Structures are given as C-alpha cells and as structure tokens.
C-alpha cells in the first residue's frame, strides 16, 4: 500500500516502484490502474486512496491493461497470459499463448469487446458472452489495434499495411497497403478516417470512404501514439517537440498547415491522450512535463508535476474528469480536472 501525496490543486501523486506501462480507468471511472514493468498492477481510487498492488504476471512484466465492464481489470503480460484481476485482487487466467508477449491490446468504447495481439494473430473476446474469436494470421506481428468508434471494425496494424476486420463477418479483412511498419491505429471520432503512425517517422491518414491516403514523412521521431481532437478536425501524434495538430480532411489538399503550439525546446512528446468529452488533450514529454492542451484556443498549461523522467503513459477516464499519468521512474499522478478548475 502506498499513500498519495498532494502536489497541488487537484493533483495527487503516488510512488509505484516500477515502470508504469499503461494506464486505464475502471468502467465506472472511480478507480485507475497502471500496468507495471515488474508484473504487478497498481489500483488507486480517484479520491486519492492508497495504491493497492496485485500481481497478475508474477516474475514477468505487465504490458497491457483494460477495465472489465463489470469491474476489475484485464491485463496481458510477457508471460503470454491474459489475466482477469477482480476488484478484490483475485487473479484468474483467462487465456494463455505461450511464447508471445500480450502487449498490444484495445477495448471497444463500451468496454464489452477486448482485442489482444499474440504474434500474427489477434484474439477478440466478447466479455459479456465470454467467447473468443481468432483473427489472422496477419502479414507480420500485429503492432497496434483499434476499434472503430461504433465498435464494428477492428484495425490491426503490421508490416506492410493495416487489416480492417468486420467483427460481424470475420472471414477476410479489408487490407490497406501501407509500406513500412505501421503502428498505433486511431479512428477519427466519426469513424470516417483511420490514422496510423510508422516506425519510419511518418504518419498516414486514410479516408476510409474514398481510400485516399494522406502521407506525412520526415517527422522528427517515431509517432508511436496518435490521438484525435474531440471534433475530429485535428490529428495529433507523439515524437514532436510541441503539440502539433494536423487538420483533417484539409490535409488531403496540397499544403496542409498544422497548428503547432506549446513548443518544448528540450524534450519530445512521449505520451498522448485526448479527452473524449471536452476538447482537451494531455501531452507528456521526455523531461516529465505533462501539458493540458486546449484544442479550441490552442493553448496549453503544464501540470505541476516534478520533472525529470519521461512520461510513459496517459489516460483519461471515461467520464473525462480525471487524467492518469505514469512516469518512467515509477511515479503515477492523477489530475482531478473538476477540482483543479474550481480551485483555480
């Protein structure tokens, strides 16, 4: 058990003692959890309760995490196990794929469907039915997963392209050819566009109706995480030294002009999460800075966190009021947006 420390108005911090790899909020937004590099998960209440630790992947590393819609957590590890941890902390193995790292995971917006990559295949779990379907094999190991906003399509990125699976007709995927190693697929909020990053410092935005592709190369670093603004007009990605918003669909015209603000001289963005309720995005940087970016006026202000270590993960609660932040040195922070705004 680890107690929280208050850093400022509406900001709490915990010390978790291990690399926080992913953050997730519970289905009711009352708790947040972090997947840790030492195989544990840490769970804290948004009221600032002590952190509780459970060990679903003992001896290994916990690499992916999602909330179970009925409470508790689902996590994947480098032990090849998908584990359910109940709200009380009891760990039960759901599935095992020996020899594979269950690192890439995505949940549908309602949390009812969970997809996990195991090498070239993707396992999709219907959590209400308790059933599992296999999709694949893909051309290469699956490097990213995303559900469409309505939940009917699953995008899986891999070497050479993106496979779009219709979950109601899991026979053959629609294949979008994009050379290179594709990462981090992200559907626009209206589901009309799919964006993905590339290992080769590029991003692609695909207009799913016309299959037109906007290609942006020569980025300063790998865009490993992508996020859309709430209104779907802007695409953001990590790897930049500022918050950079690419206009969509204007980017399909000749010379799209991105909006760049909150320039960081010393660090590039390492983590990114857009709020799904308000036009805000959280951007974490390599020097430990976490910015709250306001996507209407394009302004940003930093949270009062101790700098020094890269931000490894960010996640907004489903209700949009809380932000979970993980830092590589094993710290976790929670922003209570309501509290911060009301207390100034």
């Amino acid at each position, binding site marked *: 058990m680890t107690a929280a420390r208050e850093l400022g108005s509406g900001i709490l911090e915990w010390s978790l003692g291990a690399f926080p790899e992913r953050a997730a909020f519970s289905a009711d937004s009352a708790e947040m959890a972090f997947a840790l590099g030492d195989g544990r998960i840490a769970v804290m209440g948004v009221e600032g309760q002590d952190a509780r630790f459970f060990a679903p992947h003992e001896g290994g590393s916990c690499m992916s995490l999602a909330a179970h819609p009925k409470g508790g957590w689902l996590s994947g590890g480098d032990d090849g196990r998908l584990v359910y941890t109940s709200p009380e902390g009891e760990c039960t193995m759901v599935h095992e794929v020996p020899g594979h790292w269950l690192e890439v995971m995505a949940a549908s917006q309602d949390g009812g469907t969970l997809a996990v990559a195991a*090498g070239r295949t993707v396992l999709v779990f219907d959590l209400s039915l308790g059933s599992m379907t296999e999709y694949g094999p893909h051309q*290469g*190991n699956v490097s990213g997963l995303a559900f469409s906003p309505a939940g009917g399509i699953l995008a899986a990125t891999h070497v050479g392209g993106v496979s779009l699976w219709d979950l109601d007709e899991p026979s053959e995927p629609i294949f979008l050819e994009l050379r290179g190693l594709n990462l981090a697929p992200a559907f626009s909020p209206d589901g009309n566009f799919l964006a993905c990053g590339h290992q080769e410092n590029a991003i692609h935005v695909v207009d799913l109706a016309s299959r037109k592709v906007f290609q942006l190369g020569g980025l300063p670093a790998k865009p490993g995480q992508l996020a859309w603004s709430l209104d779907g007009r802007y695409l953001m990605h990590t790897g930049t030294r500022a918050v950079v918003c690419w206009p969509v669909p204007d980017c399909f015209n000749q010379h799209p002009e991105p909006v760049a603000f909150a320039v960081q001289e010393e660090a590039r963005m390492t983590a990114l999460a857009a709020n799904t309720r308000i036009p805000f995005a959280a951007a974490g940087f390599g020097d430990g800075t976490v910015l709250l970016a306001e996507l209407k006026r394009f302004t940003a202000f930093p949270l009062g966190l101790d700098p020094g270590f890269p931000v490894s993960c960010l996640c907004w609660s489903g209700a949009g009021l809380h932000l979970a932040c993980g830092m590589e040195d094993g710290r976790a922070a929670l922003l209570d947006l309501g509290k911060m705004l009301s207390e100034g």
Partner: protein
Amino acid sequence: MLPIPVTVLTGYLGAGKTTLLNRILTQEHGKRYAVIVNEFGEVGIDNELVAHSDEEIFEMNNGCICCTVRGDLIRMVGGLIRRKGHLDGVIIETTGLADPAPVIQTFFLDQETKERTALDAVVAVVDARHFQGQLERSAEAREQVIFADAVILNKCDLVDEAGLEEARARIRELNPSVEIIPATRCDVPLEKVMGRRSFDLLRLLDIEPELLDEGAHEHSHGHVQSVSLVSDKAVDFERFKKWIGEFLNAQGQNVYRCKGILHLPGERQRLVFQGVHMLMEMGFGMPWKEGEPRSSKAVFIGRGLDSLALQIAFRDCLVTS
C-alpha cells in the same frame, strides 16, 4: 537512468553460439540478463526470458534496402526497458544464417531504442575448423565477422597451429580491428563477452593499439575489403563532417562499417565516430592523456571501396598548418 547494455551475439550455424549463451546464463555472476532469440525453441534456456520473434525485415518508405530494421526487435527491446532496475543487460542472439546489420542498425535508427539502450558489443563466434568453408559458401558468415567487435575463435582444439593461424588470417582480412579470442567449447571469461563496452572502439584500441598501422593499407577477400586511414595531423571537423556525410550518402550501401577516432585542433577529447551503412554517429570519447601523441584514424569496411579516393578525401580534411 542509465541505458541498458545490449550484446549482439552472432555466428554461423554450429559455431557454438548456444554453448556460449548457456555459459553466460549459467555462470555464477549474480547478473540478470534477458535473451532475445530469433528462433524460439531452438535451444532450451532455463529460467530466462526468451521472447518469441518472427523475422521482420521491412523496407523504409524511401525503399532504401540497407535501412531495413527489425520492428520486432524494437518492440522487444522496448518491452525489456520496462524492467529497468531488474535487468543487467540484454543479449540478442541472431540466427546462424542472419546478417547482423539490421540488428545493429536498429540501435542507430530508432530514437527511443537508441536513447534507452547502449549497444555494448557485437560478438561473433567462429568455428575454427569450418570457417574457411563457410566463408566460401555464405555471405552471412563473412558479414558476421565484419560487423563484430570481438570474435570468439571456437573449437581451437579441433585444428592444428597452422589451421588456427589460417583462421586468424581470414578473420583479420575481413575485419582488421577485431579482437580475436581463442576458445574451446566457448570457454571464455564472461568479461570478454559481456560489458565489453567495445562498440565504441576505444577499448579495442587499448587492447590492440597496433590494429591501425601507420599508413593506409588495404585488405580484400572476395568483395569485402577494409581501408585504414591514419594521420598524426588534426582533422578539420567541419570539412570532415561534410565529406563523410556526402560519402555515406553516395556510397553508404557499400560501407558495412566505418569507425574512427579523430584528433580535433584544440580539443581535449577524442572525437569518436562509427557507422553502419548510411548511418553514422559521432561523439566525444576519452580525453587524450598528457603527452600522448595525438592522431586521427579511420577504418572503412565494405565492398568496392576506392582506397585511393578515400585517402585523398581524408587528407583533404586534415588541418594543414
């Protein structure tokens, strides 16, 4: 946080990589290493993390074939970084038939991987008895030695003195700057393999100061050759940077490795550079000692290198006054 050291272990089929790996993993050294292998299930390694990997070589969008890297490797090394504090190092064992270049390039190409890891050394295991034959059959056997910082010349008990010399000579032809460590059943001290910090070349020069002999010379075997450039003059850094950039842009696909130490005017520290194909890294290394003669040295290993042109270009970068 300090970067995690990474050792790349390479060697042709049957040379003894697995024996070496098992030695490293079973010795009482109190260290925790993670192992990444290409072929899952090839060897049984107890109590160790063995990550599964499918071969993944992909072309960059610009189609540059020499800039292929392994996406999986980046993913796995990234995964291991999360265990920082619990790991003393990462060993990447390449398959016996693999060209180690894409593995090495990963540590230059991917910014995150580069920031969080330190490529410690590339160690190649060579079968003293069969090396000659393997060289004739396989380009990979050659490349493994070319890219190595250290070669473990294994199975020395199976060859006579002449055979051993022959193997040494072959290795030297491919990579004149490599440290050769004779072994039987890979019985080499652990510190010869792990924590060498030899990828930065400096330690190698400490061990074998004569490896870059005075004057330029050239070896060749098949298509692979090496060109060494040495001068006791200082180098004009701006001119050198411009030249090497242009040279690698134009000829990088032919340059398997390049490395060197430069003496810059008025600079207390050595400037160290090393590259793989078109990629190159520069940084300041150890300071020159008081009264130590300063010199500038560079080695290029590749195919189709124009030794004379390299010498002229290098001379043009020297400070003349």
